[in-house]
């Protein structure tokens, strides 16, 4: 059987855009790529639709390149990838819900995002239809046995978190099966994107998942710039990285505290929340918004870092370097807390690789993929930072990856402040004007790799934009992780994944 690289090279359409490859394939080529993915070659990075085409993003590890394959499907159907490669299943169900394109021979034919409450069925298809009068009740997967019982949890939870339904089948305390049902916060972002001007589209992209707003804006801006064939000024690029690292710091501090808090160790949460709040306030001071929302635009950034604000950020770094090691020590020395995290929620490295788990989920299970390094983009190609890879795959490992990444981000911020070049903040606005093209960008958010693919029309509006959250490939793994654990440990596993509901539901 031909290797993935050979299949893809044969399919290439000659011209290759910078940083990624593009190919239009036929149904047979599509199936061959799917089979290669199923055989464990390459990693599926995304799968999305258009009214009459489907797209697939594949990472070819041997060449460190991302391929975008498209298959025109005028008949409204395409060969299922999920049939041979499980990570594609939910993505295919989404394509069917949104565009009405049928994955042929798909193993799972249930709807995913569509809960039967939309005003239109297949809202993004060429011809949306009126919804069926009554959608049959969602059929959860079976798990039967004499001592089993089911516990439905959510979509509304007791804490202030986003909505998602979890259906547990348990035998006493042991979880036999967990099935997730998501889609409660579907906002129709991809529908809103279509036809939007760049400014509005950038605002939409920033609102996909609030905690990763910088990473989303960063990815969207880079995708648009790739489509237009322009580059943002170096100072803007470095400032983007500064914001991205600040966002990562804030989220990691929050997560580390929240994981400990789910084991009822609120002391850690209290201290980590203080650090997180410090980061957010510094962001407010330097960039005028606590989450730095809408600070990155296609073509550059909107806010400059004032010279005297450099000191503010340095102060933050010093404080974090002073205080955070004590918290790590507190974690390490609290035996009762370690007892909860070590060995809990083990994620098999083979599964992590198959699902292409990004971020701390992958890195805690031996998958070292990090966009900043594997598909290096400016300015990370000029910066030095390590790659924490742990193989234990438990909650403790995922927490440790975060701890190491905090140190890494502090080092990166230091380097960025030292090397921050002078210059303009944005490109000339006339260079942003209408030009058709396709662009792809992958940016490392705090959860993992965010993929944004955009196609601009002649009039400079967005024809189609797809934003893929890292959670798409992490949510299914959570189902696998909880197997054979006890149900009382689920909150801990869940928090160690901290997947995005909003980013997933779009």
């Amino acid at each position: 059987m031909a290797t993935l690289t050979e299949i893809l090279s044969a399919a290439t359409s000659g011209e290759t855009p910078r940083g990624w490859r593009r190919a239009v394939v036929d149904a047979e080529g599509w199936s061959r790529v799917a089979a290669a993915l199923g055989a464990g070659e390459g990693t599926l990075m995304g799968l999305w639709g258009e009214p009459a085409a489907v797209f697939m993003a594949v990472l070819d590890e041997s060449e460190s390149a991302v391929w975008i394959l498209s298959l025109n499907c005028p008949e409204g159907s395409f060969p299922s990838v999920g049939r041979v490669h499980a990570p594609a299943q939910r993505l295919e169900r989404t394509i069917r819900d949104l565009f009405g394109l049928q994955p042929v021979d798909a193993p799972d034919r249930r709807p995913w995002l569509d809960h039967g409450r939309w005003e239109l069925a297949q809202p993004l298809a060429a011809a949306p239809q009126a919804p069926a009068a009554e959608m049959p009740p969602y059929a959860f997967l079976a798990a039967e046995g004499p001592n089993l019982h089911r516990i439905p949890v959510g979509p509304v939870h007791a804490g202030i978190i986003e909505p998602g339904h979890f259906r547990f089948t348990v035998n006493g305390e042991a979880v036999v099966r967990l099935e997730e049902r998501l889609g409660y916060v579907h906002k129709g972002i991809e529908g809103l994107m279509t036809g939007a001007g760049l400014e509005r589209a950038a605002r939409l992209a920033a609102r996909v998942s609030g905690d990763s707003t910088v990473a989303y804006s960063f990815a969207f801006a880079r995708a648009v710039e790739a489509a237009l064939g322009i580059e943002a000024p170096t100072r803007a690029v470095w400032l983007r990285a500064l914001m991205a690292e600040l966002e990562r710091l804030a989220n990691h501090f929050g997560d580390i505290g929240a994981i400990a808090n789910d084991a009822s160790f609120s002391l850690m949460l209290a201290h980590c929340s203080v650090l997180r709040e410090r980061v957010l306030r510094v962001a407010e001071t330097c960039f005028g918004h606590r989450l730095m929302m809408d600070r990155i635009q296609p073509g550059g950034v909107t806010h400059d870092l004032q010279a005297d604000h450099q000191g503010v950020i340095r102060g933050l770094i010093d404080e974090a370097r002073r205080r955070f090691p004590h918290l790590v020590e507190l974690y390490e020395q609290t035996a009762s807390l370690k007892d909860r995290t070590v060995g809990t929620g083990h994620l098999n490295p083979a599964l992590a690789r198959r699902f292409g788990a990004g971020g701390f989920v992958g890195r805690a299970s031996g998958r070292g993929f990090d966009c900043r390094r594997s598909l290096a983009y400016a300015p990370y190609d000029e910066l030095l930072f390590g790659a924490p890879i742990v193989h234990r795959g438990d909650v403790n490992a995922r927490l440790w990856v975060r701890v190491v990444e905090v140190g890494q981000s502090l080092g990166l911020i230091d380097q960025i402040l030292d090397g921050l070049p002078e210059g303009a903040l944005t490109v000339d606005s006339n260079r942003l004007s209408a030009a058709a093209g396709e662009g792809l960008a992958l940016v490392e958010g705090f959860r993992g790799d965010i993929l944004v693919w955009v196609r601009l029309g002649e009039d400079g509006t967005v024809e189609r934009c797809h934003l893929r959250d890292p959670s798409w490939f992490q949510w299914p793994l959570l189902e696998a992780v909880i197997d054979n654990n006890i149900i009382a440990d689920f909150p801990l596993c869940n928090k160690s994944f901290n997947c995005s509901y909003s980013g997933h539901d779009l």
Partner: protein
Amino acid sequence: MALIIDLNIQFTEMFLVLLLSPLLTGWVRKVKARLLRRQGPSVWQPYRDLARLLKKEVVLAENASWLFRVAPYLIFAATWVAAALVPTFATGLLFSWCADLIALAALVGSARFFLALAGLDVGTGFGGIGSSREVMIASLAEPATLMIFFSLALIAGSTQLSTIAGFMQTPEVGLRVSLAMALVAMLMVAIAENARIPVDNPATHLELTMVHEAMVLEYSGRHLAMIELAASLKLLMYLSLVGCVFVPWGLSPVGGGLARHLLAAGLYVGKLAVGGVLLALFETSIAKMRVFRVPEFLGAALMLSLLGVLLLFVTRSF
């Protein structure tokens, strides 16, 4: 006349525990918040919560049976009686003759029995989880409690709390290993019984990890108020019990004057405050244990108390 005064003191004691218990809960919460460098709600907040709950409408599940509606009052009554039986500031009160350790264990056990039934009654998943966990914990906590009570009874020669407290103040007690074991076991049982960290977390919002909270998830309004008040009373009862058996100094003896009673009451409040601080300190410094570690934890309590009893038998036979 003497009877009326005695009655008055006895009733004062009963209402004292009822009125103090939300304050104790509020105090523990406040200390915990301060330890986390938070401001925390006022210590009076539990009273406001109770008042609010009493005013609110009760939302009942459609398939709730009479048991579900009656259980909160039964739980509250049993816990209040148990809390009122423990000598708080005075021994030898009018009803002290019925302040029996075995009765205490039975009252607490009955309250738990009804709570576990109520958790199952509505048939929600969480109630079932909570009840099954609670019963698992109880199956180890109750024998441990009885063993502790036996060692106390063997040492003091009575199961009457008033007598035990009196005996504990005499020099006859001395330093006893079995007493120390009983104290440690008692503290462990108290933590489990009151759903405190590391066995359960009274402040959690995570449905899947709850024990006590999971059983009462379906309650609202005055029913919930009764259960919350009962939980506060139970905490107060255990602290009072530890206080009257292990630090009985300052208890007002039979026939003590009004001034003596007042002094003893003040001292009692002081003991509770110190107990609350210690509890908050302990809870802040430890994470919750995995559910299946709880039997080990309580097993240790059971073993300690059993060892205490055995030690007493062995030393007696010589």
